[in-house]
């Protein structure tokens, strides 16, 4: 029985890698997610519909297509891949950073939608009140709008994290399936099911995936309730 629960080195690595990739994907896309949600909720500019469509594209496109596009753009010879390599020394191709990028892109529409919903629900009259008290636009955003959007930001972060944990198609297309580098939990499970005798390990990892997803959900629920109480003014 002990043998069944003992995780192999590859499995532990896959879990740790998955969590790292998901955390990076979530945190790195957060500022962009807030900015995009703000732009879409409040902005009035020509071509807003196009921007809206672009943000939502990864939600409706096959992940494999997203992965292939990322490969073209951020691959070793892609225009953006070169740019990042030259300017900041960040390489995405066949690295865990690429897995994080793929997860971030695929989770982005979910994050933006959640934040935008919350932003739409913010009482603009409170922002007016803040302005009459001497707060300029930046401080109104920082002290009033952003805190009142917190429930949506939390929800968006959790959705992005969960979507990252489950990311498969875009990742395997973009950065392949390299043990210890890009072989995240879903890729490890997939690999194990393709390997003779890999089923018990696949089952263990599946259980871990369920636990991780549940933990993320529970944590978000807990946070959302706390924030909700605060925003309710109690």
């Amino acid at each position: 029985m002990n043998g069944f629960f003992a995780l192999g080195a590859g499995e532990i690595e896959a879990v740790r890698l998955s969590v790292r990739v998901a955390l990076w994907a979530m945190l790195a896309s957060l500022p962009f997610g807030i900015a995009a949600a703000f732009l879409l909720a409040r902005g009035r500019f020509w071509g807003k519909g196009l921007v809206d469509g672009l943000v939502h594209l990864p939600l409706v496109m096959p992940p494999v297509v997203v992965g292939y596009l990322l490969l073209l753009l951020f691959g070793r010879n892609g225009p953006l891949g070169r740019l990042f390599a030259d300017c900041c020394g960040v390489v995405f191709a066949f690295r865990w950073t690429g897995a994080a990028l793929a997860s971030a892109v695929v989770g982005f529409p979910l994050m933006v939608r959640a934040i935008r919903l919350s932003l739409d629900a913010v009482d603009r009259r409170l922002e007016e009140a803040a302005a009459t008290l001497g707060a300029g636009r930046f401080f109104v955003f920082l002290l009033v709008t952003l805190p009142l959007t917190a429930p949506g930001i939390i929800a968006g972060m959790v959705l992005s994290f969960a979507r990252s944990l489950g990311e498969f198609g875009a990742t395997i297309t973009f950065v392949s399936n390299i043990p210890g580098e890009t072989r995240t939990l879903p890729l490890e499970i997939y690999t194990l099911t393709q390997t003779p005798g890999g089923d018990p390990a696949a089952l263990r990892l599946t259980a871990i995936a369920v636990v991780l997803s549940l933990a993320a959900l529970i944590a978000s629920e807990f946070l959302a309730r706390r924030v909700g109480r605060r925003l309710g003014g109690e």
Partner: protein
Amino acid sequence: MIEVDLEHRLGTFALDIHFRAGRGLTALFGRSGAGKTSVVNAVAGLIQPARGRIVVDGTALTDTERGVAIPPHRRRIGYVFQEGRLFSHLTVRQNLMFGRWFARHARHAARLDEVVALLALGGLLDRRPGRLSGGEKQRVALGRALLANPRLLLMDEPLAALDAERKDEILPYIERLRDEAGLPIVYVSHSVAEVVRLANTIVLIADGRVRALGPVAEVLGRAEAHPLAGAAEAGAVLVARVARHDREWGLTELEGGFGRLTVPFLDLPEGAALRVRIRARDVILATAPPPGISALNVLAGGVEALVPGEGPAVEVELRAGSERLLARVTRRSAAALALAPGRPVYAVIKTVAIDRRSLGRHDPADFGDELEIFDG
């Protein structure tokens, strides 16, 4: 000193407002939808008028001709909204300090402890707005506006969402603010009782225009003011002071430019100044001093004008001494008594008809202004 000159369109509604107001409390008075809130929003900079000029203490905040449009956060105009608009994610203390922080370099800004003492907020500081009563919320909103170091305070129907008891809880604080803080206040209201109690000057607004401007007693003493303001009942406002108390009968005698008036006992020191509102329907007219009646108050005066009212009624504007009075009588009575401008009459007022809640404190120095009347 505040000067407002603005023209604005909201759909089919045209706003064309011009007035000047000095120190003390200026009431923008009129029925709902008359455009009062748009005026204060323009003063606060929350809406930009199509054309106009708004000057506060010599500083042009809005001047469409010269392209001046100072953004709201640099205007230093305090605003107390009808619904409070407290920040629900912050404590009462943080709400109060919100504007104080932006005004932290100001020299003469009010301090937290002063405002907390003025508005009795001491026990509320660590609570969140969700746990406050309606009256407490408005007190916090008032304190929050004061701490932002405003040069003018706007109040948009701050009592409208409160029940009568809560209103009575807030009114003394607004009076203290008016009398002690020396901050000019522009107060939007459609309530005659609030205006009588609080205002030094009334700006009567109807259909987006200023219809009358002047001291409270003068504006409300005219018959046409009341339908314009959508007030359910016409009534005049008398400026009076307490002459003496008659404790045996539970009465207080008031005197003023109108003569003497007996009202139910008032817990005010002798000499205290106040305002009394007398509803037009509580005034009976006679052409000779009536003998043997139960009413205690008979004021001698003369008819100034007759204004047709609804149905069979006519509103009679009277001058009693130096004060105005309104009486509502039927057309038939007016004909029978041959009421016409210049006719001497006696106004009989039932003592019990004097509305205790409309008794407001009054500072005699406020009434130096001349009455101005604008034709629609």
